């Protein structure tokens, strides 16, 4: 049974991002699967998340963690069968949890039958499904995404003896959306999954769908036309389902992907993420305030999706050179931690396992405008393994208990798709779900209460945001408001106690109620409201007229 169809469900959601491979192995082959994930749905329900975002689970040569798809309408045998997926979907819906899946349509794997056909002959009917060229000089000046591994956006195909276009790895040829057949085929793929009951798609790399000479081949009007067409069909045939844009761009550029509310429902706010980390390290609210003040208004039905960490590197694309250098120096002194233009580390290690900082960042994530996404394992403070290569260090098995393989799998440890984290600080013996379930003050228990409070107030998910500007720049304070519901959030970004005077004149007469303990604080009056906060402490106050 699908959850009730509130068409704006994505605004109120708390999303949990995971890869099936990483979560739970039900058949002892060392690789997580849908059956295992289904077994763990109770955990996610208790955590309080309302949606799961699944990373690619399609058949794939897995040269880019599944973002190189070889079959769009099936499940990779490592993760089970289509039936297993359907079972999982039904079970998730039964718990009120929606499911968002990946739709990687900018490119396919070079192992996809479409590409195999396309390269087989210049006369093949599928030839024009990809972007070909006799030379590698077209679209000069278009940036290369994976600068660590690629030197050009063109790759030579020795079979058809011509170049094909790829914005990502050379084994991921871009589809040609100028060909109407490609679009119709993609829509058929989406319908396949929608008919099974999925609640939304994350469209990967949407900015790059179309290529035009003399441009950066990003954010082109033709790309927006494609999105509008998909959205129109989606609204007509599958109301209540959602499109999420993955566009690692500045908010002003991403804004276009919301259109007039007729393109994407949601998009990631990429620049906010590094600035949350930066603000805490700088002990200064400036980066956060600046980026949010630069963030344009979006249509009423649309939403930003925000996150702290995900399956990729902590991307530093959307920062200046100076900011990037600062982030590297502060969060990735060891160059092994760096990859592409980012940092391949998890939340807890980034915060030096400082529980107060981890809580503060999660508090920011849950209280700022947008739908929060929790990356699997971060709710228990999992560590990473920067020596695994690429971004695999943040994709290690979920740590369920202190038993063999962290309770993830009964396979021999050597057979696991990746070794479990086993060091003294973040190892599964110390950091695991079971242990934290049993400890009243664990991070996991704390996260549950945080999410519960977030879920209880729509001011967080749908409310406006108004910054207060106390003279103490180490304190970030804002009011979220949805109708009569008012929430005041006060964050101390510093590693030292801070006093702050808040100008709450416009809320005179309101009584602040601390939202975790439900304790009353003195009523707001005519004078600045003085608060003291411990290191990295934050308050959430419900403001009530009593």
């Amino acid at each position, binding site marked *: 049974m699908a959850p009730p169809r509130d068409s704006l469900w994505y605004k109120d959601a708390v999303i949990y991002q995971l890869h099936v491979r990483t979560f739970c192995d039900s058949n002892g082959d060392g690789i997580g699967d849908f059956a295992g994930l289904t077994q763990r749905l109770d955990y996610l329900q208790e955590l309080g998340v309302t949606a799961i975002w699944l990373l690619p689970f399609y058949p794939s040569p897995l040269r880019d963690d599944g973002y190189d798809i070889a079959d769009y309408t099936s499940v990779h045998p490592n993760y089970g069968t289509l039936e297993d997926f359907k079972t999982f979907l039904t079970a998730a819906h039964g718990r009120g949890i929606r499911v968002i899946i990946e739709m990687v349509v900018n490119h396919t794997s070079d192992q996809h039958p479409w590409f195999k056909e396309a390269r087989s002959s210049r006369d093949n009917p599928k030839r024009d499904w990809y972007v070909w060229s006799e030379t590698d000089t077209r679209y000069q000046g278009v940036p290369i995404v994976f600068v660590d591994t690629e030197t050009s956006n063109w790759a030579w195909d020795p079979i058809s003896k011509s170049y094909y276009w790829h914005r990502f790895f050379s084994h991921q040829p871009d589809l040609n959306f100028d060909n109407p057949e490609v679009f119709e085929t993609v829509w058929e793929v989406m319908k396949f999954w929608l008919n099974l009951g999925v609640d939304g798609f994350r469209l990967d790399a949407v900015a790059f769908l179309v290529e035009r000479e003399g441009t950066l081949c990003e954010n082109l009007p033709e790309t927006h036309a494609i999105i509008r067409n998909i959205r129109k069909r989606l609204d007509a045939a599958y109301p209540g389902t959602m499109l999420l844009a993955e566009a690692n761009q500045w908010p002003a550029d991403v804004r276009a992907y919301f259109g007039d509310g007729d393109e994407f429902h949601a998009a990631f706010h990429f620049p906010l993420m590094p600035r949350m980390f*930066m603000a805490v390290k*700088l*002990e*200064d*609210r*400036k*980066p956060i305030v600046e980026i949010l003040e630069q963030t344009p208004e979006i249509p009423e039905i649309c939403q930003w999706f925000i996150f702290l960490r995900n399956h990729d590197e902590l991307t530093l694309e959307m920062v*200046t*050179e*100076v*900011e990037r250098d*600062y982030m590297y120096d502060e969060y990735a002194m060891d160059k092994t931690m760096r990859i592409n233009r980012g940092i391949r580390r998890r939340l807890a290690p980034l915060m030096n396992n400082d529980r107060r900082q981890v809580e503060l960042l999660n508090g920011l994530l849950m209280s700022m405008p947008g739908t929060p996404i929790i990356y699997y394992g971060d709710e228990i403070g999992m560590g990473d393994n920067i020596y695994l290569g690429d971004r695999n260090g943040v994709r290690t098995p979920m740590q369920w208990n202190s038993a063999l393989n962290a309770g993830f799998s009964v396979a021999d440890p050597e057979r696991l798709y990746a070794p479990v984290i086993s060091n003294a600080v973040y190892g599964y013996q110390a950091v695991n779900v079971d242990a934290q379930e049993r400890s009243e003050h664990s991070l996991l228990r704390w996260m549950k209460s945080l999410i519960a409070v977030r879920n209880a107030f729509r001011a967080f998910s749908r409310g406006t945001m108004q910054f207060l500007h*106390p*003279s*103490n*720049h*180490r304190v970030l304070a804002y009011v979220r408001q949805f109708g009569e519901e008012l929430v005041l959030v006060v964050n101390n970004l*510093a590693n*030292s106690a*801070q*006093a*702050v*005077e808040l100008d709450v004149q416009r809320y005179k007469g309101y009584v602040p109620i601390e939202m975790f303990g439900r304790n009353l604080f003195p009523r707001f009056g005519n004078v600045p409201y003085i608060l003291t906060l411990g290191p990295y402490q934050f308050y959430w106050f419900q403001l009530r007229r009593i």
Partner: protein
Amino acid sequence: MAEETFLSDDLLRQLVSVGEVDLLVGISSHDAVKTVGQVLRAIEQSFQQHFVRQRVVIVLLDGGEEREDTVIETIPETSEEKKVRVPGITSLRTIHRVTANFSTPPTAGIALRTILAVADLLRARACAVVSSSSSNLTADAIGNLLRPVYQEKFDFVAPLYTRHKYQGLLMRNLLYPVSRAVFGCGIREVFPAEWGFSGRLATYCLNTNVWHEEAIRAQPEAWMAITANCTDYRCCQVFLGEKSPPRKGSPGTDIVEVLRQTVGTLFWCIETQQQLWMDRDKLQPVPTFGPAYQLTSEPTDMDRHRIFEMFRSGVTDLEPILSSILDPETHAEIKRMVSLEEGKFRFKSDLWVRTLYDFAASYHHAVLNRDHIVQALAPLYRGMTHSFLVEHADSSPAEIEAANEMLCSEFEIQKPYLREKWKAKVEVKS
């Protein structure tokens, strides 16, 4: 109690919001409301370009009728200032600005004491004080003042400037040679308009009981420079470029007032810091970043004859006072010079040295009101200036620098004369 609460509650409340800082720049706006906006922008540009990661604060001391906010807002950014901006580079942190308001313009001493107190409370690592009248101060110059402290662990950073060869004569012919010979202080600009210092030195100076002294109220910077140079603090000099000319109507254009403020303070330092110089003969070397001096020599219009006449009439008018101050032999020699024709007049360096040492010793013995002693130096300084203008009318910058070095040596050679005069028993005339 008043001693402990000289910072206003309003300022303290602002400091609570700032917290610990790495860099602090203090600026007093009361004497130059028209240029303070430009100076503030230069400071902010310096933070934006050179210290993007550091925790920074600007401390503005405002005692004029016109509020600094008004001043700053009304001055548009010049095209030159816009050029200085580096696209994409901006401070990562908030640039804090706190304002200490005074009902009347604060003296230089009160202003510096306030800045030192703020530096101490905010635990600033590197600080600078800049003059609000330094209209041509650049972001780079401010960076040059802060960097040696912040990065090289110096405690005091004195400026060096490009000057016209006739500019800064008081510094070149009197203040520098005397402070160098007496204290062994290698800092050329002992009365800097802008300088840098460490939080360590700020705390030391703040806790030194000098702030009610008249000399400190007027010109505290020389005391700070000499204190730093003659104790365990590391000093250096940095080249800042062209020095802003003094504004018309400022104390800088009235030589008697300038002498009261500078020479008066220097003599006060000599008087109160005996332990630092009496047994000291070694020059404390001061590392220099950039050229040690840079002189220009474009033609200027100076009325040498008028200067000479003022020297002659001053010496004649002040004869009774000078006779109390100067050694009889020195006085006689000066009187002999007065009778010379202008063309034959030269104020020789050995006589100038003895004159200065006589004045310093008389200040020590307080043979007269000390303020009067300092003021009586004015005609003699004019005589020295006249000689300098004549002798160096055609000198190159190198020749002027060599002459200056010789003058400094003369002061050093004759330091025993100062000691002798200092220790002599003197009958004070009532």
